[in-house]
């Protein structure tokens, strides 16, 4: 059944691919520019269909104004002031400062670029396709009559968000800057933290229509070259018209598209991304989104937070354990409650059983339905709360609390203990943000299993989950490393976070047999100053 649907989808996708292939060839403007300015402008205008934001400015320049030129750019994507100062003014006025007898042929773009234009970032373009590409990314195009070449001058400027604290990963201690939508800024933030010539930034352009810049960032001497090759291949085979967010890339390159567990992690925080790059991972920065992808991903990364490493190890370890417990509570809480109250009442302490029974006396639904309803209501509230504007969101919170908590209990629809179970589940589910998606799905699956077969069903579900988890791989790395397969050096950073000075090696599973696996010299444990014994002798 499922396979049949998939086949249908694949077939129609193939059909569409063939169609889009045809249209794509139509738009290959692989023709050279003509030496005639008028004709060039006509071609550009006809291709852009006289879009209102495309500005064409024609002018004459040179000593006796005998050269004809034109500037083509897109409004609001360029700095007009700079264009005026650095392109128009030199061409029209500063040229007059040159002696008249200096023989310069201003139909040659190279001569203009070297002698007149005072902008560093400029490129010669000869093909129409290149010209359009640069024009649409916000570059100013200088066309000169009589030249087969055009000059693309980079004077981009548009409104952008400043560097702000990311909303999804707030910290108490640690850097507060976050990536933003401009990939260049994001790359700069990474570069600013790693001042190492080994830091490689590879640029790719994905998306037939959006032509989004995608960067692969890694440390050459640390990252496994096979990993980088694999990333290049996987990203390279993406043929899609638009990349609007890094999620698009993620879904095309992940290892297990049918798994509920993510095999590509993401972050908005430069410090986190840099830490992972230093462990031998690669970051994929996509223009237009602050979310940077990081591969390969281990399951344990979901439970680690950047703050774990900034705080001292004791509290960090406790928080780590609390996060594990929260994940267990958030996935198993309602299932456990249903299994106990419906199937294994003998396991509940007598006093508790009596008070649960007292609370449930007037409840007309079976426990599984009760739990399902409550979880559903909670998920609706959460979804509504995220989408709504902030002032309304608060109202939803109050209504939700009253509806969920008090009214339904007083009306006898829900038992008070169920409210406690579901609300603690809800709170616990936010402690592990990276696994919220999988946690939500697992919660419903386990609840269903508990309703069908009680504790037995929950255990079967857990076993299936464990089997699935241990079969997952992310870019060749076992998902459950360092627990399965076991690695003593890696386990230092799993259930508890050992002091930083004990973590001498980078995770071996990510860097493989790379020589540069040591990240600090041994014996760095701090201790008070001691006179050398040899000295005292």
């Amino acid at each position, binding site marked *: 059944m499922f396979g049949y649907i998939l086949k249908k989808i694949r077939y129609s996708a193939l059909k569409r691919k063939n169609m889009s292939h045809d249209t794509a060839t139509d738009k290959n403007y692989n023709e050279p520019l003509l030496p005639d300015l008028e004709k060039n402008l006509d071609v550009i205008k006809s291709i852009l269909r006289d879009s209102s934001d495309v500005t064409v400015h024609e002018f004459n320049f040179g000593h006796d104004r005998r050269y004809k030129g034109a500037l083509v750019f897109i409004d609001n994507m360029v700095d007009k002031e700079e264009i005026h100062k650095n392109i128009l003014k030199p061409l029209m006025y500063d040229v007059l400062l040159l002696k008249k007898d200096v023989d310069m042929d201003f139909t040659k773009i190279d001569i203009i670029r070297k002698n007149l234009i005072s902008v560093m970032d400029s490129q010669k373009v000869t093909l129409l396709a290149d010209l359009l590409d640069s024009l649409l990314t916000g570059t100013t195009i200088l066309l000169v009559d009589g030249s087969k070449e055009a000059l693309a001058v980079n004077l981009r400027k548009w409104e952008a968000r400043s560097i702000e604290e990311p909303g999804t990963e707030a910290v108490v201690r640690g850097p507060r800057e976050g990536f933003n939508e401009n990939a260049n800024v994001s790359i700069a933030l990474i570069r600013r933290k790693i001042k190492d010539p080994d830091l490689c930034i590879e640029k790719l352009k994905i998306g037939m229509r959006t032509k989004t810049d995608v960067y692969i960032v890694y440390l050459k001497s640390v990252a496994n070259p096979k990993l980088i090759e694999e990333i290049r291949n996987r990203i390279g085979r993406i043929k899609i018209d638009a990349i609007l967010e890094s999620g698009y890339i993620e879904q095309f390159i992940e290892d297990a598209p049918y798994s509920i567990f993510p095999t590509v992690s993401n972050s908005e925080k430069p410090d986190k991304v840099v830490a992972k790059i230093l462990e031998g991972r690669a970051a994929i920065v996509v223009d237009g989104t602050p979310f940077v992808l990081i591969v390969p991903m281990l399951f344990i990364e979901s439970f680690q937070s950047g703050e774990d490493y900034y705080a001292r190890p004791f509290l960090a370890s406790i928080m780590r354990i609390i996060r594990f417990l929260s994940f267990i509570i958030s996935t198993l809480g309602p299932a456990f409650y249903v299994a106990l109250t419906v199937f294994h009442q003998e396991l509940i302490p007598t006093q508790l*059983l009596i008070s649960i029974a007292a609370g449930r006396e007037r409840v007309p639904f079976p426990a599984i339905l009760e739990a399902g309803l409550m979880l559903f209501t909670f998920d609706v509230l959460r979804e509504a709360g995220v989408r709504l504007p902030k002032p309304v969101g608060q109202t939803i919170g109050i209504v939700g609390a009253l509806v969920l908590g008090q009214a339904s209990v007083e009306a006898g629809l829900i038992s008070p203990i169920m409210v406690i179970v579901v609300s603690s589940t809800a709170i616990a589910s936010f402690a592990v943000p990276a696994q919220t998606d999988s946690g939500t799905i697992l919660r419903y699956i386990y609840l269903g299993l508990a309703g069908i077969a009680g504790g037995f069903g929950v255990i079967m579900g857990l076993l299936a989950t464990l089997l699935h988890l241990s079969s997952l791989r992310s870019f060749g790395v076992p998902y459950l490393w360092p627990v399965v397969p076991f690695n003593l050096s890696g386990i230092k950073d799993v259930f508890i976070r050992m002091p930083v000075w004990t973590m001498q090696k980078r995770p071996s599973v990510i860097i493989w047999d790379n020589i540069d696996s040591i990240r600090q010299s041994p014996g760095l444990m701090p201790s008070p100053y001691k006179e050398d014994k040899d000295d005292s002798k």
Partner: protein
Amino acid sequence: MKKKMNILIKKSVLCFLMLFMLSGCLGGREINDLEIVIGMGVDKDENTENILVTAQIVKVGEIEKTSGSSGGGPENKAFWNVSHTGNSIFEAVRQITHKTGNRLFVSHNQAVIFGKDIALEDVQKYIDFFLRAHEMRPTALILIAENRASDVMDAKPETEILPAMNIAKLVKAYGFTSHFYKVNVKDFASCIMSATSAPIAPIVGISKDNGSKDIYVSGMAVFKNAKMVGELNQLETRGLLWVLGEVKSGVILVPSPNRQGNAVLEILKTRSKVTPEINNGKIVMNIKIKMESSLSEQTTTENLATIPAFEEIQKALEEIIRQEIMTAFDKSRELNADIFGFGEILHKKYNNVWKTIKDDWDEVYPTIKLNIEVEARIQKTDLLKKPATSNKKGK
């Protein structure tokens, strides 16, 4: 290749689903449909020879009210004693559903109370159900009613809401005095199954002082061949517990050296070791008791916190403990019931000898000699170093 994989996946999914059918716990029951039984009483029906089973069921709705508003009406009982007669316990239990409408849920049964008539007849016949039923817990306490079990279950306690819970709490608190002992169904049954050991069980009665009905534990019933043959009083029970090493705490009064008052000692820690010995065919049980105590009260002005006083008290203490053990042993000899489990101890060490004597254990048991060694120590005097009297009198 891909098709093969698909078939494999389908097969494994099918296997996984089939596992659910194998499970025996598909029958879920909502908590609302349960009648939670917290105590069961077994009596002989007064008129016929049938059994009268009484089940104490929690009325969960009333629990909420009584715990919510402290001044709940006295007529609103949070429990419901429902009983029915039958030829067997299981039959009667199923007959009770005629009155409840729901199946009884006995996993949380706290106490099984046998009426005295049942205890005098033969407990073995009636305990089978409590061991065999899969919902039953072997940790449920076993108790003998002084009279009828149903009366004991009716007495409404003052602080607890549920009588059966109250009884279980009382019995479990034996450690404060060590005057009685808690016995659960499993212990009781294993004693019955032994060839020589005699099971014991606490007796609960109703004291009717000042008009109020209070439940209390009056002593221990001694069984022989699953029939009740006699009772142990509180001190005899402690004598027994000394040997079993089950004295948790308790109070011992020792006359002070100048005989003007008592030193009241709290038992802190005890240890016992029983080693059997056969000398020329005579069985001697070497019992070594070590105990630590604290001086918790004194009813004399004399300062007892001195080394000579301590030594004297310790000596008296040892003698008292020895006496307690001897009275218990004398009683057991009188009843000819091996409550100490000496038979099993002998079995473990002298297997060959035991084989020859096990058939006439009843004759052998009264001839056993005890060799009791007690080492009693006073560890501390709690907060006072000397009694709160004026110095003049003491010196």
